[in-house]
């Protein structure tokens, strides 16, 4: 199966047709939202304080809508005008910028309380133009990302590494830029549900959180976005709402201060899609 990154540069691949999928295909939407919810969990923000989050490769704003539902404000950057136009049409609450993460994050020091990136980082591993050098672009990205995070803030980047070398390449550049951390793998034993989160910390070396285990992957979350999107085979995907509720339950068990569920918890934003 060919990887989208090998077909065309992102600003070409994510054209109007591709952008449409990110508002019309409920399966893609659910997968992006679930991965965002997990990334948000790994960010370890305090549940009760609304934060300013940077969403890198924000696309049509699916990841951003999960941030909104959790009460956060966000700024998104993306290289595809078609994707950003869709986000604009959806009236996302986040603010949008057309920018190439490989040219750096154009913000002043300490601007953000955290950063997420969902399914975008693998694009940086390719040289789409003759003057592109992936190592340089990755370093530029991570060093400027580091600078625009506030003290002890984290960045969590879900991505689709092509192989072990790519994971090493990406991690090495992040560490060189000053981050601590590494890759958390959820459902490592499931070919379908396995997913990679690069968890980056600014405030010193603390142990990486554990990945979710493969037991739970029997719930049938298929994260493989390669090839055709298969029709659902009777398995029920967890809704964003139950995902958030599960997360809250896990956090309550950890003795954390968690907002009580309200009628707004994990609500669908009606009429927007």
């Amino acid at each position: 199966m060919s990887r989208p990154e090998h077909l065309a540069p992102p600003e070409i691949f994510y054209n109007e047709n591709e952008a449409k999928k990110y508002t019309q295909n409920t399966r893609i939407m659910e997968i992006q939202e679930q991965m965002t919810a997990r990334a948000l969990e790994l960010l370890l923000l305090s549940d009760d304080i609304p934060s300013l989050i940077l969403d890198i490769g924000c696309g049509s704003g699916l990841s951003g809508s999960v941030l909104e539902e959790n009460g956060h404000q966000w700024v998104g950057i993306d290289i595809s005008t078609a994707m950003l136009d869709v986000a604009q049409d959806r009236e996302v609450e986040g603010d949008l910028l057309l920018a190439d993460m490989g040219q750096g994050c154009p913000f002043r020091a300490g601007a953000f309380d955290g950063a997420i990136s969902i399914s975008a980082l693998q694009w940086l591993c390719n040289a789409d133009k003759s003057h592109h050098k992936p190592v340089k672009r990755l370093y530029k990205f991570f060093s400027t990302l580091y600078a625009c995070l506030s003290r002890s803030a984290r960045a969590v980047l879900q991505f689709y590494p092509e192989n072990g070398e790519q994971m090493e390449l990406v991690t090495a550049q992040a560490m060189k830029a000053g981050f601590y951390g590494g890759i958390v793998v959820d459902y490592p034993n499931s070919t379908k549900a396995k997913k990679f989160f690069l968890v980056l910390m600014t405030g010193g070396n603390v142990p990486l959180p554990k990945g979710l285990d493969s037991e739970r992957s029997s719930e049938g979350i298929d994260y493989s976005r390669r090839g055709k999107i298969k029709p659902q085979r009777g398995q029920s995907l967890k809704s964003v709402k139950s995902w958030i509720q599960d997360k809250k339950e896990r956090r309550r068990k950890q003795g954390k201060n968690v907002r009580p569920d309200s009628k707004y918890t994990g609500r669908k934003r009606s009429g927007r899609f």
Partner: protein
Amino acid sequence: MKLLTHNMLTSKCIRGVNVGYPLSINASDVRVADVDFNPDFISRMIPKIDWPVLYNAVERLGHVEDLPKETPVNYESNEDFLKKAHHALLEVEIIHGELVCPESGRKFPINNGIPNMLLNEDEI
């Protein structure tokens, strides 16, 4: 683009530009949106905000209304102030116009509310 974003945005990714802040604004279309007021969020943002830059930006856009020139002490409990800050940070939006790098004069167009920060090959 909201002025909260403008307050954080720089042009320092251009080669040879050191600070690239604040970007000056030429706006041809400004709109005021209605955004839910969240006092906790605004309180949290105040220490991060470069207030003079925010003040100059709203003034330039003609929406300064009665935003104070300086942040008051004990702003956390000053709802009236927080509402004004909320308005300036999140509700005033630039739809069309341009941002200008203070060091190089490079212009970044804003279309449909979205600033184009993409750089050319010879600028990186």
